């Protein structure tokens, strides 16, 4: 498996997109962190990048990579290799590449320029979002053989998690505002990795004091030392479930 990951990584490095992505993140983080005098403010403006750009790039990049590696996958399938290993190697290869880009582009500037509890949480949740959305990309890729369709599904997934879901939740909260929804809100948050990641970061920032009773519940549930483990766990479930489904489908797929 390690060997295949090596070749996947080699292949990804051959095209320059991943390097462009790294540079983009690096420029954005450095400029945001050095423009803001308050480190927390810098972290806060980076938050928006993390929540929008990271999932989008992860899911689109991984999907395109999957379809571009179709030949490679075909080649490997005829070899004495387990199918699940082939897919997982692809997954880990892409994940490692994206995580490295994120680590250099966002993690490094954060550690060097403003290392706080909040920024370390930003790194953690950004990394988890990358893992989750790559996983979703693989799931989207194995369910269809059509590249355009696959990218379409990926974009839809991204759109759903970044915008539509929150819109639906807002509608729901609005319609049932007479009920005590504080607890329900915890569940709604856990059901969207983007929301989960956002809350994880916000809880570590000063401004979490503005979150009132709901914020206190959040803190109790997702924020404390134990809570961080819970929220990380929730994110990992979001990463494992789609890729597990992808492996299941891929194992039965006709190539």
């Amino acid at each position: 498996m390690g060997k295949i990951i090596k070749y996947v990584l080699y292949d990804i490095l051959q095209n320059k997109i991943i390097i462009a992505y790294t540079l983009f993140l690096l420029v954005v983080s450095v400029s945001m962190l050095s423009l803001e005098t308050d480190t927390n403010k810098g972290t806060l403006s980076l938050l928006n990048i993390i929540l929008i750009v990271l999932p989008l790039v992860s899911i689109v990049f991984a999907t395109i990579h999957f379809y571009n590696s179709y030949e490679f996958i075909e080649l490997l399938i005829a070899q004495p290799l387990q199918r699940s290993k082939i897919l997982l190697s692809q997954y880990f290869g892409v994940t490692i590449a994206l995580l490295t880009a994120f680590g250099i582009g966002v993690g490094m500037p954060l550690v060097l320029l403003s290392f706080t509890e909040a920024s370390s949480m930003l790194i953690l949740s950004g990394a988890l979002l990358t893992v989750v959305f790559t996983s979703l990309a693989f799931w989207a890729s194995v369910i269809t053989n059509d590249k355009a369709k696959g990218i379409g599904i990926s974009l839809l997934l991204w759109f759903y998690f970044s915008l539509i879901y929150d819109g639906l939740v807002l509608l729901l909260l609005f319609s049932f505002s007479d009920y005590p929804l504080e607890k329900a809100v915890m569940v709604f948050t856990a059901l969207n990795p983007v929301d989960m990641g956002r809350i994880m970061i916000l809880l570590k920032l000063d401004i979490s004091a503005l979150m009132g009773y709901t914020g206190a519940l959040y803190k109790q549930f997702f924020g404390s030392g134990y809570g961080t483990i819970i929220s990380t766990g929730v994110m990992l479930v979001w990463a494992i479930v789609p890729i597990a489904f992808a492996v299941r489908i891929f194992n039965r797929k006709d190539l």
Partner: protein
Amino acid sequence: MIHVSQLHKTFGNLKVLNDINIGFEQGQIVAVIGPNGSGKTTFIKCLLGMVMPDEGQITFNGKTIKNDWNYRSLIGYMPQIGRYPDNMKVGQLFEMMKDIRKSAEDNVQTDEDLLEAFDMKSIYHKPMRTLSGGTRQKVSACLAFLFNPPVLILDEPTTGLDPLSAELLKLKIAREKESNKLVLITSHILSDLDELVTNVMYIFEGDVFFYKTLEELKRETGEEKLGKAIANIIRQGHKKLKD
């Protein structure tokens, strides 16, 4: 060596393989032939585990291939259209395949006859995407024979090859026949196979229309040339079907 029983496969509404029962043994060179879209490639992909059959069983040396992947170390496969990672160089491709195979099997005796015959070393530095279709076919052929497997599955091996290379490949196949291997070849250019084939499997609309040794075939039809013999038998067969 390979036994197939009651193999069914449908793609959507299209019945591609319909109850195939067949067995192949060592030392045979089987020509898998049939009209376009008859299911030849699907059949081969089933053998390779690339396509999952809906029903039926395939055994390899007595063991079912379902949920198994190790048996593929005994197969060299040359696809109809060889597609490889664009950015990879030819030399890297061979290195990688050796590398991957090494992890699966302990000691691999590589067979580099074809590599030399096709003079692959001279294009080792070229990226795969720059290669012509024919050159890719050569690469595919080399890969299929590289690990000296007891079973070779060649899907349209001579398509796109220049006559000289095609000849070299045929020579190679002939040599494999002598070392008691099983070779499955699909091809539509029948004359190519004349000198090599021991058995002919004819697939028609997803079913085995006939499966006969070359001698039987020649005897029954009275034709010397394989092509004509087959054409003969098909004509008769189709007439029967019409009646």
